[in-house]
């Protein structure tokens, strides 16, 4: 096992640069999730790590080896792909044993490793089947099995759960996490789903347009997003972002004529244009505060999402308790002042 160090990594296709100097340090045994909207460069980064994409500039180090010019098979990595990429004409056992066979490992050693992996993943009864006779979840397990048997230094996952249905996805999420806790192999996992990122990661790297928007522990990103992009990307429903102006004294922000009290912090010059960020679950019914009109009510059972209109803006609130709202009702909401986020309107960066 080994850590991964990525230094000032750049990727350009012709004149078009898609990764603009990315730095990531992954400690040995860490589970890192790269997350971002499509086109942000997360998959490119993973493929460069795997050796499937050339490196324009910068270095990638696995353990203490610089792997820039090594072929994928020499990097001691294993990758799990979105559409499983199982060899259609090989049985499950042959699929899992294939990478070992390619390295000239002895047959009985291969068999014992495949058996062990099949045991871990509950694939024992399916070893003689062909991939076409397996369900999506089973295929994904075989793909993971093929990665496990190699006992690589790093696991790479490329959106492995995107093709599964919602229920199976949640189940596999737990399984992958459990597997990682058991094997403690350094893992880099790419997804566009922030819930996957939040639930699975030791550390999340949020990417945007070829830059790293923020990296840190899941709750760190949730509690202290570095900019409006991360603030809106992490969390569901996403954070309410309301543009406003800092009021006199710096203790409040004026949003569409409503003053929202914010705790004092650095850089709150009166008149500065800012964006107030309020998580939907930090809004509660109060006697005074923001007055808004109910537009849509979405009960999920455990909680209720309420979409409201505030002037020309939409606002989302989440309540655990069940209020008897109806569309068209006017309600007054107060944000929890201790967890209000503030961002600069021009740069989108966090204030304080």
């Amino acid at each position, binding site marked *: 096992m080994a850590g991964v160090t990525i230094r000032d990594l750049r990727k350009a296709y012709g004149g078009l640069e898609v990764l603009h100097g990315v730095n990531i340090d992954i400690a040995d045994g860490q589970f890192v999730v790269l997350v971002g909207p499509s086109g942000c460069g997360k998959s490119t980064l993973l493929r460069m790590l795997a050796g499937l994409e050339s490196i324009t500039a910068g270095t990638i180090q696995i353990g203490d080896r610089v792997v820039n010019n090594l072929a994928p098979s020499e990097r001691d990595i294993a990758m799990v792909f979105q559409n499983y*990429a199982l*060899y259609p004409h090989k049985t499950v056992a042959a699929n899992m044993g294939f990478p070992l066979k390619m390295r000239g490992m002895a047959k009985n050693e291969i068999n014992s490793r495949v058996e062990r992996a099949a045991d871990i993943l509950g694939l024992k009864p399916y070893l003689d089947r062909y991939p076409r006779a397996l369900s999506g979840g089973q295929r994904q397990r075989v793909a993971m099995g093929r990665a496990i048997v190699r006992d690589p230094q790093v696991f790479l996952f490329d959106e492995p759960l995107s093709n599964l249905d919602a229920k199976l996805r949640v189940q596999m999420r737990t399984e992958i996490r459990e597997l990682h806790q058991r094997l403690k192999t350094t893992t880099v996992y790419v997804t566009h789903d922030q819930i996957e990122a939040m639930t699975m990661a030791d550390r999340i790297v949020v990417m945007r347009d070829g830059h790293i928007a923020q990296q840190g522990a899941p709750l760190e990103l949730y509690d202290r997003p570095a900019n409006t992009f991360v603030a809106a990307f992490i969390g569901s429903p996403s954070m309410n972002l309301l543009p406003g102006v800092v009021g006199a004294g710096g203790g409040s922000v004026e949003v569409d004529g409503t003053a929202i009290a914010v705790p004092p912090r650095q850089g709150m010059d009166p008149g500065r244009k800012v964006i107030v960020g309020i998580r939907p679950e930090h809004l509660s019914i109060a006697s005074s505060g923001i007055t808004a009109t109910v537009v849509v009510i979405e009960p999920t059972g455990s909680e209720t999402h309420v979409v409201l209109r505030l002037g020309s803006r939409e606002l989302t609130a989440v309540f655990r308790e069940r209020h008897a709202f109806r569309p068209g009702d006017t309600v007054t909401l107060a944000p929890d002042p201790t967890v209000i986020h503030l961002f600069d309107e021009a740069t989108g960066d966090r204030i304080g």
Partner: protein
Amino acid sequence: MAQARSHLGRTIAAHAVLITYTLIALFPVFVIVINSMKSRKAIFAEPLALPRSDTFDLIGFTTVLQQGDFFLYFLNSLIVTVASLFFVLLFGAMAAFALSEYRFKGNTLMGLYLALGIMIPIRLGTVAILQMMVAAGLVNTLTALILVYTAQGLPLAVFILSEFMKQVSDDLKNAGRIDGLSEYRIFFTLVLPLVRPAMATVAVFSMIPIWNDLWFPLILAPSEATKTITLGSQVFIGQFVTNWNAVLAALSLAILPVLVLYLVFSRQLIRGITAGAVK
């Protein structure tokens, strides 16, 4: 009900069209086969009649089979067709793989260049090809024919196969790379099996014109030892007298090998189609 009936009506109409077409297409073949088994007089008296006991005569077949070289002609045709097909499929698939898999400068131009041969008939270059073969000392060899037919078949093969290869999952190829497969093994063991239906299609399309060709055998390899079946059949067609029994019998026999090859490939074709449908 109404919907079911219109569905049935449409099915019948579709089948009627297809059956009519099949009949039209098969009719000449049918006439050749029945007449090959009739006496010369009966062929001219009633060309469309089935052979009866009094008109039944296998003289055509015996003439053809007694003409000792006929098996050699058959063999020549078979060697040329199979070898050309092999090279068309091999090189066509390799070129298609390169075009669809690797990003390089002039990729699209190269693809267009390779496909250009679909629109330009190779026979336009006959004189140049003949000069080339003479210079290379390949006149009157089967190699000459195999080379020409390989060139003739490649454009369509590259064109069809590169489209199909683009559909082969990138992830699969990448998984192979990570497992340490060389590009050659990725091509032969992962990609080729997956485009087998397309290969069968290309094989069928390339095979028929090669088997039926008279032009190049006549020009490049007319010697007794290298005659193909189509060329060999011509001995029965004279300027003044044509041995129709023998010609028809030779043509009937010439259908058989190509029919067998077609059946082999078409089974692949159908298997490929149903495998896709069931999945």
